[in-house]
């Protein structure tokens, strides 16, 4: 491996973020480089002279460090197989392997840059689809070209995957941003006793101030020789105080990025290093997220080596990297001049180009003694160079000048990084006086300090941050004492805390007169090439602006040039919302951070609208890219298991999911996986045993609700369709529940154990919904009734089959199981296998059967007793598949499968369960109205003679949801279908518009199959077997 270019690291000066004693080696694009501990990948590469990090999205132009702030996609790299990471956010470590995500050296797609004429904004709306079918060809090409990063190709074993976690957090005050403003606010608030969290994205505090930023883990000894600028002193003191603050009052989180602010100050904070997503509820939030620098737009402003002044400053001061030996600084504010001083401190003479026509006195004075080239009234024309910047051409006083350089720094202004605040309801407006966006109102409980609020001067920042923090602390402490007082009062207070709190909203924004922007932002850093060439800048000359492919990049991520915005406006898409969507301005990785404001200025000029009136599109979370793993970490999928679950597992039952429960579907013989045909055979065997001898099934999942009180029957009467007031104690009745529109909602059985005690069962999936509905209606009526959800209080087993009575006789105490004393549709209480039990004798599968409900904790014991006792009769358990088949043979419907969101009881053959005499039940009147109008469909039973190949392969048999056809039109659909071993026919349920003799079902392959309509139930129509 050839060693790379000479190091650009300065030996001794600055680099306060790195530790020169700890070198680290890493690889980029296969070559080996060295950096230091504390370096980011970007700074280490910059120090090693690497200038090209990627190729741009559309034109595949070479790109390098631009903002060093995740405000552009130039530095997206693939690190250790993880794609799309910002190189400036990756902390360097030993052995790191990084790759660019495009071909850096010889990229054949670079030819696109010469075809830019044919690729204006929105070109894809008008091309690639003629002649017909040509898109298939283009699509294959685009799939290869599009996208940025590549997902890892190697599979990682599940247990070797890193684990991601989540945690909730609760604080009274969260301060986002650990620069001077943030640290001031946090320490002030903590001093006053407010529970504060300070969140800072970088691994160190300090923000844009280049003090010796103190990592909270490091020693507090401060090296005086590293103090470089006047704002260091106040920050040092604060950081000292920070280290001594009690942990209860102030928590500091470095390496945490707040990516979203949701309603009522609910923050998402991503702590990438610890792989944890924090969901933090703050009562108040002070956002000190700073400002990001804006670029200038001119020809070839995307060349590697052209960067923002803040990036250059970070590289030099923070990482000790000399960004260039022959720098040119395009400076429209004092920040650029300060950068010039930084270069001078390294012994390098920069060239200053200032667009301001007249020298700005303080700036000019600062560099007076250094004899450097400084020009005013400069209009940049273009940056020149092949693959990296080699010089700058500019127009000064009407004549062109060329400045050779190896680095071009742009300092034209700042915009507030107010995304979080805007998500929380703040309003940004473009102020003409300051040539930038400013916050003019904040959401409730939100405050802004520092550069995001428009203040840059350190003394001002500190004062405002202190004032804000004090005001916020006062408000929070008074709320705290208010909340403690209300705890002792009764809970029927009607006034909410929020109403009281909202009475006097706190306004902490600084007055506009305090803003420092006016000196910071250049009003128009957009310099179209052709306009610059002309001596006098004619504002209204359209021809100036209509220049194709002059490579003045507005949005680096999307490779948008000024001409693209022109095209958009010319095509009629001239509001900012339309420009954004048509040109994709601001839709790239940086989400408009470096492109939106300049785009706004250009469109404003073209449409002759005020920037303030044009506005910008809204900002949504996340403010920074989040990995899916972070969002998926520690996710919860509740699972409910019956107490007999272990027994099912030990019997190798195949489980299925029913709602949040796991139920055994069938019990295969041990333990190899079964194919579909074998599984069906097992199910048919289970069905046969139940019909001929006896079987048992775990029915714990069915819901149970206990209703107590003297009005219990009246309550049931009002909620369900049938009548229960005259139901005798010891009897069971069918329950059908309809919703307010008369649509079938749930069904079950109502058991009366006492005059004031009803036990209502529900379907497995409906227990929660029914319980809530019962509570809702209970609250509407003034009845003497109490309702409790006993679903998990009872475990249940249903013993069904002609031998059921024989089997249970030996286990029951206190219950006479004979047919006379315990008839069909009866309920009894007693003991089974020593446990208190409720026995229900209901239809279930159409055989003699008893449903036994025992306390949940005794379920397993009951199962064991039944299995043991039942050995004599070879009683085996059966599962849900067999249950469904048995019930289908009896024509029982499944709510949700044989009914849908519109099915009325009369349509589902349940009209008999609707009382005509009751004065009221939920859904009564709507049901009456609809029945009057006429029932348009009916659920009927059909049967198909079974052929041998039907049984074995189930080919050419209808499936659920196959359509029923009549005279070429759709007449209904099949809702359930299965082969019945008991009847040796294929039976099913279907909806039809009219009851006929036969129906025609359209199979999946398009053919029609004739089936005969038969009355329900298919098996034992008189119901004799269940009344044994």
């Amino acid at each position, binding site marked *: 491996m050839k060693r790379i270019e000479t190091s650009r690291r300065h030996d001794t000066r600055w680099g306060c973020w790195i530790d020169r004693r700890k070198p680290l080696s890493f690889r980029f694009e296969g070559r080996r480089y060295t950096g230091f501990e504390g370096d980011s990948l970007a700074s280490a590469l910059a120090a090693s002279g690497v200038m090209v990090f990627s190729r741009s999205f559309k034109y595949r132009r070479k790109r390098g460090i631009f903002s060093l702030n995740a405000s552009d996609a130039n530095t997206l790299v693939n690190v250790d197989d993880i794609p799309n990471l910002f190189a400036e956010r990756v902390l360097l470590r030993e052995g790191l392997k990084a790759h660019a995500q495009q071909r850096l050296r010889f990229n054949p797609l670079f030819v696109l840059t010469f075809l830019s004429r044919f690729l204006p904004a929105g070109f894809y709306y008008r091309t690639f689809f003629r002649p017909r079918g040509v898109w298939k060809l283009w699509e294959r090409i685009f799939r290869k070209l599009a996208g940025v990063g590549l997902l890892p190709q190697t599979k990682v074993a599940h247990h070797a995957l890193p684990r991601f976690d989540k945690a909730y957090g609760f604080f009274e005050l969260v301060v986002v941003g650990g620069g001077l403003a943030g640290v001031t606010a946090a320490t002030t608030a903590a001093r006053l006793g407010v529970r504060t969290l300070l969140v800072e994205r970088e691994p160190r505090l300090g923000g844009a101030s280049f003090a010796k930023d103190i990592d909270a883990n490091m020693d507090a000894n401060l090296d005086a020789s590293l103090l470089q600028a006047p704002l260091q002193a106040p920050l040092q003191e604060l950081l000292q105080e920070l280290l001594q603050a009690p942990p209860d009052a102030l928590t500091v989180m470095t390496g945490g990025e707040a990516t979203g602010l949701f309603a009522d100050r609910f923050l998402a904070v991503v702590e990438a290093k610890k792989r944890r997503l924090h969901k933090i509820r703050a009562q108040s939030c002070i956002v000190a997220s700073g400002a990001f620098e804006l670029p200038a737009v001119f020809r070839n402003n995307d060349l590697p080596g052209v960067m923002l002044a803040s990036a250059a400053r970070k590289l030099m001061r923070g990482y000790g990297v000399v960004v260039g030996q022959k720098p040119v600084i395009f400076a429209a504010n004092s920040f650029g001049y300060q950068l010039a001083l930084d270069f001078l401190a390294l012994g390098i003479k920069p060239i200053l180009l200032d667009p301001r026509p007249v020298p700005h006195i303080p700036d000019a004075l600062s560099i007076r003694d250094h004899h450097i080239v400084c020009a005013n009234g400069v209009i940049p024309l273009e940056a020149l160079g092949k693959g990296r910047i080699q010089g700058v051409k500019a127009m000064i006083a009407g004549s062109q000048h060329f400045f050779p350089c190896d680095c071009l720094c742009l300092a034209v202004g700042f915009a507030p990084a107010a995304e979080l605040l805007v998500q929380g309801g703040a309003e940004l407006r473009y102020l003409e006086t300051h040539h930038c966006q400013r916050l003019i109102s904040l959401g409730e409980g939100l405050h802004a300090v520092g550069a995001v609020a428009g203040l840059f001067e350190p003394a001002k920042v500190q004062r405002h941050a202190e004032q804000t923090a004090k005001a916020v602390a006062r408000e929070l402490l008074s709320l705290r004492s208010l909340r403690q007082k209300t705890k002792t009062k009764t*809970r029927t207070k*009607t006034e909410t805390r*929020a109403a009281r709190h909202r009475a006097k909203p706190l306004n902490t924004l600084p007055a506009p007169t305090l803003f420092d922007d006016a000196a910071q932002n250049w009003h128009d850093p957009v310099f179209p090439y052709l306009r610059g060439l002309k001596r006098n800048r004619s504002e209204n000359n359209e021809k100036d602006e209509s220049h194709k492919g002059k490579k003045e990049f507005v949005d680096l991520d999307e490779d948008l040039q000024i001409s693209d915005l022109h095209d958009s406006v010319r095509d009629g898409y001239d509001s900012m919302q339309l420009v954004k969507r048509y040109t994709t301005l601001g839709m790239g990785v940086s989400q408009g951070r470096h492109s939106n404001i300049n785009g706004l200025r250009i469109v404003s000029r073209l449409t002759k609208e005020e920037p303030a009136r044009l506005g910008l599109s809204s900002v949504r979370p996340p403010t920074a890219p989040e990995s899916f793993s972070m969002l998926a970490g520690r996710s919860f999928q509740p699972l409910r298991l019956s107490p007999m679950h272990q027994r099912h597992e030990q019997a190798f039952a195949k489980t299925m999911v029913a709602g949040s429960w796991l139920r055994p579907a069938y019990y295969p013989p041990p333990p190899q996986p079964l194919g579909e045909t074998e599984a069906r055979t097992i199910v048919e065997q289970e069905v046969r045993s139940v019909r001929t001898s006896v079987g048992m099934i775990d029915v714990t999942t069915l819901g149970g609700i206990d209703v107590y009180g003297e009005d219990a029957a009246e309550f049931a009467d009002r909620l369900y369709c049938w009548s229960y007031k005259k139901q005798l104690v010891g009897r069971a009745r069918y329950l059908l529940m309809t919703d307010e529109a008369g649509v079938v909602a749930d069904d079950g059985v109502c058991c009366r154990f006492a005059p004031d005690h009803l036990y209502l069962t529900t379907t497995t999936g409906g227990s929660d919904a029914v319980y809530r509905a019962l509570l809702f209606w209970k609250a509407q009526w003034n009845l003497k009734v109490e309702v409790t959800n006993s679903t998990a209080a009872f475990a249940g087993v249903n013993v069904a089959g002609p031998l059921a009575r024989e089997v249970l006789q030996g286990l029951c105490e206190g219950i006479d199981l004979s047919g006379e004393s315990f008839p069909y549709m009866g309920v009894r209480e007693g003991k089974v296998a020593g446990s208190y039990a409720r026995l229900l004798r209901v239809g279930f599968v159409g055989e003699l059967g008893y449903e036994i409900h025992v306390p949940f904790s005794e379920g397993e014991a009951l199962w064991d007793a039944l299995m043991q006792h039942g050995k004599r009769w070879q009683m085996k358990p059966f599962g849900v598949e067999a249950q469904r088949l048995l019930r289908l043979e009896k024509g029982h419907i499944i709510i949700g499968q044989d009914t849908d969101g519109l099915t009325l009881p009369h349509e589902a053959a349940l009209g008999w369960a609707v009382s005509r005499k009751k*004065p009221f039940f939920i859904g009564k009147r709507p049901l009456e109205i609809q029945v009057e109008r006429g029932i348009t469909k009916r659920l009927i039973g059909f049967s198909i003679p079974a052929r041998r190949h039907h049984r074995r392969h189930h080919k050419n048999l209808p499936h659920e949801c196959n359509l029923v056809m009549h005279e070429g039109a759709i007449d209904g659909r099949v809702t359930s279908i299965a082969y019945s071993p008991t009847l040796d026919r294929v039976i099913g349920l279907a909806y039809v518009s009219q009851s006929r003799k036969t129906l025609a079902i359209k199979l999946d392959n398009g053919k029609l199959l004739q089936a005969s309509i038969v009355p329900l139930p298919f098996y034992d129509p008189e119901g004799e077997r269940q009344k044994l």
Partner: protein
Amino acid sequence: MPCPIHGERNIAEFFCKGPVLSMPNATRGTRQQWARYLFLAENKAGIVDEWWLHSPSSLWFVARRDTTSDEILQTWTIEAYRTQQQKKTTPKATPKATSKTTTR
């Protein structure tokens, strides 16, 4: 959501059933009244009293919400709401004026 019994909790713990409506008469109600009650939602842009459920405790209560700003103005237990309705005095809830010019 400031639940009247449990205090302020994340909105994820709650479920909104819809506005508080009175059912038309079960025997004398006309088709139009019933159809309007069941299928035509007023969808008012303004202050609405709604039924809310606190899922973990299956507790129903009433909340007054400004549907334009999604702010919860006040909450009541069912008994308190009933007494409040019977008195026929509506408390003065002050909806916060929010002017948003950033387009969504």
